[in-house]
């Protein structure tokens, strides 16, 4: 059994401002993160993600419930023990939070000062800068770097005290897509190379899709859905989760385009518009061919997309099925048995 490095047990955070309504930022969340996971927490802004991850290093104290990190109940630590513990929990931020008055090397050295001799610090800093690919910029100031480079410095700094857990607070949200991807790849390689456990919060499902092994979806302070990346993508239960996934597939845009096609606008009585979603093995089977051969149902593919999630194929097809109603029902039953999720597609145009 894998070790749980972060455990939230029925954690609640309520913000009370004078004369204002209390805000329930985290609503009775229980969650655990295993060693070696890259755990993604997604939700829109204001869902409570940032507050939740700040409970890990106790930058935010829970109103009730307990937080256990690397075997210690965080609430029971003394101020000094807490500071020691925080050194084992690295954190990177959306706006990097580098010190403008210090060079890149000094920023990375910052958490190390006073903990080891100077030459060891210098050695470690140059190793870290090499790890994140910024050796040449050691003497530059943060203002001279691009966003992606600043985040690399942030990562190097977070790694300086050899943390076992890394918290990523919207670390790629201020970056362009290409830079985002390279930062995510860096995090993934750190996860693999150093066995670093990463808790990543984001509103970008793409980021989750690219590197996370597990996912939790948050809404209004509560975790509404959780599971492995494949489970969540293949069988999302909550509407919010489905919306997030559709956004990454750009399905909403696609559906709009599809609904304008004549073939879709005038569906015959023997036609049905459905979306087929499948993961892994089912992708290998000749689905469409089987439908025709066994059930006499033809499938007109309007949209097809296959992506790789943790090296497992994940497919989405939007098709118009044509056949006798009975045959279509049988065909759909066959698909469902083969672990293909079938959803009836509602046309966006009808609402417009």
């Amino acid at each position, binding site marked *: 059994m894998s070790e749980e490095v972060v455990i939230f047990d029925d954690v609640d955070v309520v913000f009370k401002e004078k004369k204002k309504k209390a805000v329930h930022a985290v609503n009775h969340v229980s969650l655990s993160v295993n060693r070696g996971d890259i755990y993604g927490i997604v939700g829109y802004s204001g869902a409570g993600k940032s507050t939740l991850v700040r409970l890990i*290093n106790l*930058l935010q104290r829970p109103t009730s419930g307990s937080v256990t990190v690397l075997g210690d109940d965080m609430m029971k630590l003394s*101020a000094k023990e*807490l*500071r*020691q*513990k*925080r*050194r084992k*929990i*690295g*954190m990177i*931020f959306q*706006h990097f*939070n*580098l*010190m*403008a*008055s*210090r060079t890149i090397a000094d920023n990375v050295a*910052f*958490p190390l*000062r006073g903990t080891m001799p100077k030459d060891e610090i210098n050695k470690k800093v140059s190793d870290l800068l090499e790890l994140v690919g910024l050796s040449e910029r050691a003497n530059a*100031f*943060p*203002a001279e770097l691009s966003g992606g480079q600043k985040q690399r410095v942030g990562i190097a*700094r977070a790694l300086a*005290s050899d943390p076992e857990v890394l*918290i990523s607070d919207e670390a790629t949200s201020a970056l362009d897509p290409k830079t985002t991807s390279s930062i995510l790849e860096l995090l993934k390689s750190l996860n693999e190379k150093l066995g670093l456990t990463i808790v990543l919060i984001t509103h970008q499902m793409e980021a989750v899709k690219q590197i996370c092994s597990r996912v939790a979806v948050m809404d209004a302070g509560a975790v509404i859905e959780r599971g492995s990346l494949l489970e969540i993508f293949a069988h999302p239960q909550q509407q919010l989760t489905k919306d997030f996934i559709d956004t990454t597939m750009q399905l909403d845009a696609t559906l709009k385009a599809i609904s304008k096609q004549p073939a879709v606008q005038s569906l015959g009585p023997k036609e049905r518009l459905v979306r087929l979603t499948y993961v892994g093995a089912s992708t290998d089977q000749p689905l469409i061919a089987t439908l025709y051969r066994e059930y006499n149902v033809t499938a007109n593919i309007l949209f097809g997309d296959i992506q790789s999630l943790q090296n497992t194929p994940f497919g989405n097809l939007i098709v118009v099925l044509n056949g006798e109603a009975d045959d279509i029902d049988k065909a759909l039953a066959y698909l469902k048995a083969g672990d293909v999720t079938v959803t009836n597609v509602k046309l966006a145009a009808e609402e417009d």
Partner: protein
Amino acid sequence: MNIIEKFFPNVVPLWNGDGGVVEAINQTIYMTVWTTIVAGIIGLFVGILLLLTDEHGLLENRPFYSVLDKLVNIFRSIPFIILLAALNNFTRLIVHTGIGPTAALVPLVVGTAPFYARQVQNALLTVDAGVIEAAQAMGVSPLGIVFRVYLREGLSELIRVSVLTIISIIGLTAMAGVIGGGGLGNLAINTGYLRYENDVIWVSLIFILIMVFIVQFIGDFFARKTHH
């Protein structure tokens, strides 16, 4: 020499000696330097306390902050000329004299320290809260954050408000004549103004301006140097 005698007939005989220009300059410098040092230390300390104990501060403590905050406001709102007179007994207690430049130091410090404390608080508030959070997340102690983050990241802004404060001290020293503190302000009023010797007023003014410009120039130089 003739031109100087022509334009500044009253200044020339007054240049050296008791109540002279040179003495006045020295007194102004004396009062400014000592006030800067003492009020600087007290103001910096109080300013940091305000910063740390305020809402969302590292050592948030509302009752403490509220008392300190009000004290600072009260002392800042007393007109300096009244403070000079009001602190007379307190001054005697501290420096064992009620007149002269040294006696002026006490009200100067009392008048300046709260002003500087507020400036320090505001200057350090400009340090990005995210950077403070990052330092906390790295396990740095509050004291460590003050010295390694606030005072370092806020240095440029701190220099700016210090220059502002020193210039304001130079201004306040001009009133020190009321309690026999001397200085250029005293020279301008008691000699220049009361004896209708306008050239003395102008010379005092010029020297005050020169001091202000020097402070401003040095301050700007360091503020730029520490700004990245």
